[in-house]
């Protein structure tokens, strides 16, 4: 992702800002300008809760290059409290200690290992409560 593309996502990545369809109520993360459920274009920004529960998860042992330093790590589907299902990492816990349904809270972390001379990407990950 280019520096500018990444910059455009700061609001979503830093603060869990997504969209809600004002016609049918469907929630989107990241943001969307069009509702795939009802076809409406009446969507507004919504800051979602920084708490949720583990819906499902997987341990990653072999990762893309930019995540190598973090392996092994856990990627999970998180059901946000009163919000949508999103994909994120669960940090500071071994995969063996994570259970479906466990409560998690958002933390602010580096997303990937920085490449020399590049901008560092930051964003939300989750930690067990």
């Amino acid at each position: 992702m280019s520096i500018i593309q990444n910059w455009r996502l700061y609001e979503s990545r830093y603060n869990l800002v997504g969209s809600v369809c004002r016609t049918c109520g469907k929630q989107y993360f990241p943001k969307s300008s069009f509702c795939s459920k009802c076809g409406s274009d009446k969507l507004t920004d919504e800051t979602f809760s920084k708490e949720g529960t583990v819906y499902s998860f997987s341990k990653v042992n072999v990762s893309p290059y930019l995540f190598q330093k973090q392996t092994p790590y856990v990627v999970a589907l998180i059901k946000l409290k009163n919000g949508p299902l999103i994909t994120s990492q669960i940090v500071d816990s071994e995969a063996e200690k994570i259970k479906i349904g466990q409560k998690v809270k958002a933390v602010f972390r580096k997303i990937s290992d920085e490449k020399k001379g590049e901008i560092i990407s930051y964003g939300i990950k989750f930690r067990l409560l």
Partner: protein
Amino acid sequence: MPGIVTYGAYIPRYRVTVEEIAKVWGKDPQDISHGLFVTEKSVPGVDEDTITIAYEASRQALARIDIDLQKIDALYIGSESHPYAVKPSSVTVATALGIDNHYFTADLEFACKAGTAAMQIVSSLLACRKARYGLAIGADTAQGKPGDALEYTAAAGGAAFVMGSKREEVIAEVEDYASFASDTPDFWRGKYNKYPSHSERFTGMPAYFKHVVGATEHYFKKAKCLAKDFDKAVFHMPNGKFPRVAAKVLGFKESQIKDSLVVDLIGNTYSASSLLGLVRVLDKAKPGERILVTSYGSGSGSDVFVFKVTDNIKNLRKGQKLNSMIKDKKYLSYGEYCKHTGKIVQN
């Protein structure tokens, strides 16, 4: 005078012991721990740095009060491990916290005293009514060269203080602040160097003690007071020995400094060191107590702050105590510690 409205801290979960480091370098861990009064230190997660630590400490602070974030008119971060040489940490932290564009800000660096320098700037902006609230943050992921004496203590952590001027909100009033500085080459890191260098024993008497004792005595003289006039004191903690010796020289008893000595448990968190000591003291503070804080930054300088705890501290929402963060830990092997702190170079 302005004061602290709320405060927060963050310590990464990871630790490496002095024993684990000493084993690799063929040193006697007991000798080292005995000399430094440190048995283990905090280590950042692989995806943590000064920006993420500063954010987490600030979030802990902000969760304890109801505040309109758009009234935070100043945000300063002191650190000697800002992730970029050129690009501010402060704007990323402010954006992530949800503060809009109208705030005074800068990244500060003055070795280990940059956190109290942030507090001085914010206090001054509040005093001259240029800011309604301000965030002063000290955070570091300190680096020690592999095998060097500093490797046993260079740790990671952060502390954040929201400061304001409303009497009914201030939990610890700033009574006064003062500084003491000189050009002293005890510890430095060159422009393109990964690890700092230091002048070994020169870091003691002509550096740490001259400035910490000098700044505190300067304040004593100015305010016509002595060690006995304070309930608690906090001194910068490069190791466990230096603050204890400085306190003794200045006439403080062990009981006045014991709450502040986080170094014994997590090592030297550099720009966060004296501020985390203050957090630990505030976690137990009672209304009416007077707290003296003297930081130290190599190069060299010391800042003195004097706080008086107010009745409002009883109304501050309970946050996560520093002691509980310190207890939540996972030990790393030396190899894992190297991976976490970027000591392993991958081409």
